[in-house]
């Protein structure tokens, strides 16, 4: 049990590339922290530096208050679960799990007891005498976890432990990991590129991009109050809609029509250095079929009409894709997100608007439909630096705030 503190930790490779730059992060004892970001964002390098598998180029890493920069992995007393599981194929499940204990020179009775305990927790008892080759993917994953928990280390590090499982098993194992971490109360750092895993598992989520931390916070906070365009686009599925907007005479001109803005926003936008070209971000669930909105709610937003492209009925909701006129919003962050999801080469004309409407909506493909959009929940971003302009003291108040 220990806290982990990263104090301006950085990683620079000999060829000069900076993989991680000045990461500051305090992970409390027993906390479950997720490092998430697209591939190449430095999350795995950060984890490997905590593990001791990569040297730290600058800054200080403290585990349990003690500086461990120069300590070998085995002297840090932390366990790691690898994406590939990395089970020892020449050993049985029991030997795999006993391996760290044998290296710690525990006596045989203690080793047996601890392995049996860990096996029971992970329901591996029946598999103890098998070899990894004769296990399914999910079982191997559990053995890898068993090997980590068996010696009760100060912290667990997990490097995309579920990404090799099929979708169904992944959801199931997610709850297993979550329950296990709560039960053991061990500090855990978990790396993933899957924002769903990040949202569902962590006490806190660290979003990384290009080796730098973008935002740290509980999942809901990142979702509701993203600090910048990157975080807003990365968290959430389907992801936030981004539309270009122009600020003009106290209003925003967008593809959805003119949107009013509140006093505070207006004052900020009228300041000398404020950008005139903006990006509006709206989450799919902040739209609604205009027919289903009552008058009270209607006043908090605007209505517009657009042609319906595709309707996906999920049973509980309907995902409705609208085609809207005008340019696509452009910013470095958005291009990076598109590249990561593989959507970069997949651009049609005009922009697409993803909305999540009530299941009761009678919307049909091909028709023109009136849609309501909640103005209290929209975000405004500066395309130049991606900053969320609607964020005040960490809270996002929408564009209408006075």
């Amino acid at each position, binding site marked *: 049990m220990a806290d982990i503190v990263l104090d301006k930790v950085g990683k620079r490779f000999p060829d000069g590339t900076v993989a991680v730059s000045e990461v500051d992060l305090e992970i409390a004892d027993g906390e479950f922290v997720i490092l998430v970001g697209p591939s190449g964002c430095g999350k795995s390098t950060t984890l490997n530096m905590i593990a*001791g598998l990569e040297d730290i180029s600058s800054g200080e890493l403290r585990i349990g208050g003690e500086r461990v920069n120069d300590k070998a992995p085995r002297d840090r007393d932390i366990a790691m679960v690898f994406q590939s599981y990395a089970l020892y*194929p020449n050993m049985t499940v029991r030997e795999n799990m006993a391996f760290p204990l044998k290296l710690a020179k525990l006596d045989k009775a203690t080793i047996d007891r601890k392995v049996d305990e860990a096996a029971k927790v992970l329901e591996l008892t029946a598999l103890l005498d098998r070899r990894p080759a004769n296990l399914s993917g999910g079982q191997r994953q559990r053995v890898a976890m068993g090997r980590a928990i068996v010696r009760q280390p100060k912290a667990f590090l997990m490097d995309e432990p579920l990404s090799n499982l099929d979708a169904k098993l992944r959801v199931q194992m997610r709850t297993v990991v979550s329950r296990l971490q709560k039960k053991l109360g061990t500090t855990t750092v978990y790396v993933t590129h899957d924002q769903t895993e990040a949202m569902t598992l962590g006490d806190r989520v660290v979003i990384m991009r290009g080796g730098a931390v973008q935002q740290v916070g509980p999942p809901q906070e990142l979702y509701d109050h993203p600090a910048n365009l990157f975080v807003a686009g990365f968290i959430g599925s389907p992801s936030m809609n981004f539309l270009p907007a122009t600020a003009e005479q106290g209003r925003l001109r967008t593809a959805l029509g003119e949107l009013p803005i509140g006093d505070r926003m207006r004052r900020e936008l009228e300041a000398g250095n404020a950008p005139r070209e903006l990006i509006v971000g709206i989450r799919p669930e902040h739209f609604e079929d205009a027919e289903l909105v009552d008058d009270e709610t209607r006043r908090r937003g605007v209505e517009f009409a657009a042609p319906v492209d595709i309707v996906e009925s999920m049973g509980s909701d309907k995902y409705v894709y609208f085609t809207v006129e005008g340019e696509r919003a452009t910013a470095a962050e958005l291009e990076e997100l598109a590249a990561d999801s593989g959507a970069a080469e997949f651009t049609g004309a005009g922009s697409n608007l993803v909305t999540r409407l009530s299941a009761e909506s009678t919307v049909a493909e091909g028709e023109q439909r009136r849609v309501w959009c909640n103005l209290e929940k929209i975000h405004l971003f500066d395309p130049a630096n991606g900053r969320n302009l609607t964020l005040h003291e960490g809270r996002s108040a929408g564009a209408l705030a006075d």
Partner: protein
Amino acid sequence: MASLDTPAGAKWRWGLLDVVVVVFALVPVLWIMSLSFKTPATLTDGKFVPREWTLENYRTIFATDQFVRALVNSIGIALIATAVAVVLGTMAAYAISRLDFPGKKLLVGVSLLIAMFPQVSLVSPLFEIERQLGLFDTWPGLILPYITFALPLAIYTLSAFFKQIPWDLEKAAKMDGATQGQAFRRVIAPLAAPGVFTTAILVFIFCWNDFLFAISLTSTERSRTVPVALSFFTGESQFEDPTGAISAAAVVITVPIILFVLFFQRRIVSGLTSGAVKG
């Protein structure tokens, strides 16, 4: 490998081809075995199966000190050279496959160069050097050149094996509390075992078969190996045809190779690393 949907015709064609290759390779071996069991009188009768069976040829070769002595030399020299080459090769191959050190490309290049070098051009200089150093006609005099030429082979074979072992296993061992040495001994070495045995067999056969160095760098029974001793075989008297004895000796020296391969074959279990990582 014939998959289930291979047409029957293709199977037959491949099968036939296999038979041709096997026959082509084995006929000389069977022929020499047949010769070794023939009596001097029937030696030249041209029959594949001996008309009169005899073990006389075998008795003859083991009765002469010449052959037994050469056999001991061969076994000793080949085993020592193999052991040294495999140990050094394992360490070098591990470093080459795992570490990035200055001069790595040069090292690999040089070892390739050694493997490519025509050995015959080295015989005269080696002869002079060994005479000066007093290594001529000694065991080390043969072991040293054998190691030199076997090492590139060992390094290449072994580094291919090491590259197959997922690096994550080593990282996992380190996280589990192993030192570099423990990680190598307890995790990597057992997995590299098939590669080590394969290499050992290849190196052993190379040393066992060598004729060029053995005939140039030896002069007496002190260090003469079997392939050379065979060429000096004369039989009991000058007028006796040594063909039977030579055949018997040739059969005898293939036996250790077969034993060696059979002994290690069980350990060359392919797919030993399966189950280590995803899949």
